[in-house]
């Protein structure tokens, strides 16, 4: 038998507003409220609302059908503030009993790469939010953009999680199949569900690609491919952005019809079923150890963290933001702390990516900047203002390598 495990990522960042040099010290409003609202509204109408309606319907028609979701804390905040209707529709899905919720960092951040204490703080903050909104306590974790290594498994195991979702990266798997449960090499033996990137990306990226040899992709065809894992795998992990449905792939591509018929087509094969991540790791024994000392992720052909911290400007921006952690927390100023954390969302660093070519289109998705260099200047202007706010409270100039490197070198009036 083959079990299909769906996991959908739901996330929208707080994109920064155009923040110019003239704003520093005068304007502490960093985020583009209007633009973010417009995008959320658009994605709600194109994806979240119609897909949730379809999901609820599918749950009624197929009691066996189930999926898992991971919501970033920042998208949940946006739903609460701007679109309670969307939040309610997700709550209804969870209430149906067909949905497992996955844990992640509240701010969809890269904290794991730069500050372990910050990482743990955000995982806990997210856990609380999920419990409060949905009444579930996640037992499986996924890190931002499926960024993963052995060390992450140990930390997550120490926090009491039983499983982690990760990329089925060829460079780690080698000849082995992603369609089994694996375990981490350390003392915690955390169970790993690895993304079947071929089948996942057939839906997420190739579905509407006319140049693709398998175009058009139909539910019966896809179900046959999934069924091929029979005899050579237990679980097919289909991980993708939820925005695939209706937003990345528009309704005209037939993506909703595909989704509508997929459960019945998969269930047509005897013994095939659907599992959530925690069911999968309870049911199947690990086949072996997935040993990834290096960082892997689900992004780009490299499957590493280079989409976020691959170049010098990305590294500098990320190092800066984590360098000031202690000073930020010491202010005990809720506004400063929240702004600082919202600036940690991985998208801000993604916009500074200078890997063009094949992956360029993905990087353009709702990207507010003309170039990565704009993104960096904007981000650094904001950090310079944040620095002034912190120093206004600490009453002394902050010190640090990145602070010195990027502090504006001329005299300006302090925070007014």
């Amino acid at each position, binding site marked *: 038998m083959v079990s299909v495990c769906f996991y959908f990522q739901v996330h929208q960042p707080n994109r920064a507003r155009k923040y110019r040099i003239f704003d520093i010290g005068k304007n502490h409003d960093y985020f583009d409220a209007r633009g973010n609202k417009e995008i959320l509204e658009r994605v709600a109408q194109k994806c979240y609302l119609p897909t949730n309606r379809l999901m609820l319907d599918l749950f009624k028609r197929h009691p066996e059908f189930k999926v898992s979701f991971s919501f970033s804390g920042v998208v949940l905040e946006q739903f609460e503030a701007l679109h309670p209707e969307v939040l309610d529709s997700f709550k209804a899905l969870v209430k149906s009993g067909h949905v497992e919720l996955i844990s992640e960092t509240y701010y969809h951040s890269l904290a794991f790469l730069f500050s372990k204490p910050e990482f743990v703080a955000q995982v806990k903050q997210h856990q609380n939010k999920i419990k409060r909104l949905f009444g579930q306590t996640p037992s499986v974790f996924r890190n931002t953009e499926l960024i993963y290594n052995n060390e992450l498994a140990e930390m997550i195991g120490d926090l009491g999680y039983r499983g982690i979702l990760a990329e089925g990266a060829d460079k780690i798997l080698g000849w082995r199949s992603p369609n089994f449960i694996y375990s981490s090499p350390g003392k915690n033996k955390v169970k790993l569900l690895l993304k079947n990137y071929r089948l996942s990306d057939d839906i997420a990226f190739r579905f509407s690609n006319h140049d693709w040899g398998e175009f058009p992709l139909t539910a019966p065809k896809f179900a046959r491919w999934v069924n091929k894992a029979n005899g050579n795998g237990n679980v097919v992990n289909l991980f993708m952005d939820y925005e695939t449905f209706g937003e990345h792939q528009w309704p005209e591509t037939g993506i909703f019809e595909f989704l509508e018929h997929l459960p019945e087509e998969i269930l047509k094969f005897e013994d095939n079923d659907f599992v959530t991540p925690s069911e999968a790791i309870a049911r199947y024994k690990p086949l072996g150890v997935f040993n990834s000392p290096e960082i892997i992720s689900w992004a780009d052909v490299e499957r590493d963290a280079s989409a976020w911290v691959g170049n010098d400007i990305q590294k500098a921006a990320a190092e800066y933001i984590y360098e000031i952690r202690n000073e930020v927390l010491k202010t005990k100023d809720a506004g400063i702390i929240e702004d600082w954390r919202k600036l940690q969302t991985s998208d801000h660093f993604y916009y500074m990516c200078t890997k063009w070519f094949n992956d360029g289109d993905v990087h353009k998705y709702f990207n507010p900047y003309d170039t990565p260099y704009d993104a960096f200047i904007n981000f650094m*202007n904001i950090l310079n203002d944040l620095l002034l706010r912190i120093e206004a409270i600490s009453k002394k100039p902050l010190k640090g390598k990145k602070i010195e*490197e990027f502090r504006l070198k001329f005299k300006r009036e302090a925070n007014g």
Partner: protein
Amino acid sequence: MLGWEFPPYKSGGLGTACYGLTKALSKKDIDILFVIPRAPFEIKSEYVNLILADRFITPNFREIKVASNLTPYLNFEQYSKLGSIGQVGSGFEPNYGRNLMEEVERYTELARAIAMKFKFDVIHAHDWMCAKAGLAAKEVSGKPLVVQIHATEFDRTAGFPNQIIYDIEKEAMSRADKVVAVSNFTKGMIVRHYGIPDEKVKVVYNAVNFGEGKELEQRDDHVNLKWTDKVVLFLGRITIQKGPGYFLEAAKKVLEIDPNVKFVIAGSGDLMPSMVEKAAQLGISKNVIFSGFLRGKEVDAAFKMADLYVMPSVSEPFGISPLEAMKNGTPVIISKQSGVSEVVKNCLKVDFWDVDEMVNMIIGVLNYKKVGEEMSKLAFKEVMGITWNDSANKLVKLYRELMS
């Protein structure tokens, strides 16, 4: 090919493009007969000697110099001034036109005579002054004509075209067999303002090198100038098209925030006196340096000493200078109203009128050093891939289509 004299002769981007295209074309399987206007007295100047030394020599490249006072970017007023400084009727060539249009007519007739004398398969004319000559050559030979537009009258005048020049451009493009535009930006102008059908206009981008892999040369941290200030460079003709006024307004605002910046304006042009005056009015004369027109190695030196190059053009059909800056490892800000912004990725792009954003970018690059480093590092690699060979291949393909 009816073209223009090569750099370092004072001809701006048009000469550079003619040089790049013909040099790359001369390595292909075609013969080029290159016809250029040349005032005879120029032959005595040191720069012409420089050109001759620099000129590539291949058996399939021949050149005809036609005695004429025409240079690119001339307007009626400037042409009449040429007369007053004694070049027209100076004894070398008594029959020059009394005004620009007469001279264009005279050149056209000379081109007609050349076209009758020589054999060729395709005529390729660069910009409006040569376009009329191209039409004449087409009339007598019956051969297909390609008119390449490096700048329209709308670009040169920032939207206030001279009717006579506009009419010539329109007639030439309408009667040409094919029009080559240096960017989609320019193609859009040609289709919109001149009513030329979209499918008749082919885009062939300019380039900056010939594909020889090179390492980035040593940059100059302006030790020679004994400056500790950062240097922001404007390089180009000081004309309304190039947006020097926006550069000065940005300079003023930058200096209000950071007084330790020098703004260098390299180039000459009809707006030079008013820009000197404007700098004084803005109270920033101390920080604005007018270097005059730069040639050859001086241009590279200017880029190398600059911390940042800004091209605030109001309407730039292509814009080769940013590519030259990138080749010299200088970070670049270019106006979005330019053809080159379609081609390059590793630079900052700004609307020419958005002075505040320009200031934001200038301060950003000068103060967040990493951004300039990352940008210029990748820009250098990028620009090495933008070759005249690619442009020439597109032209050869076009010629073959027209001949068959």
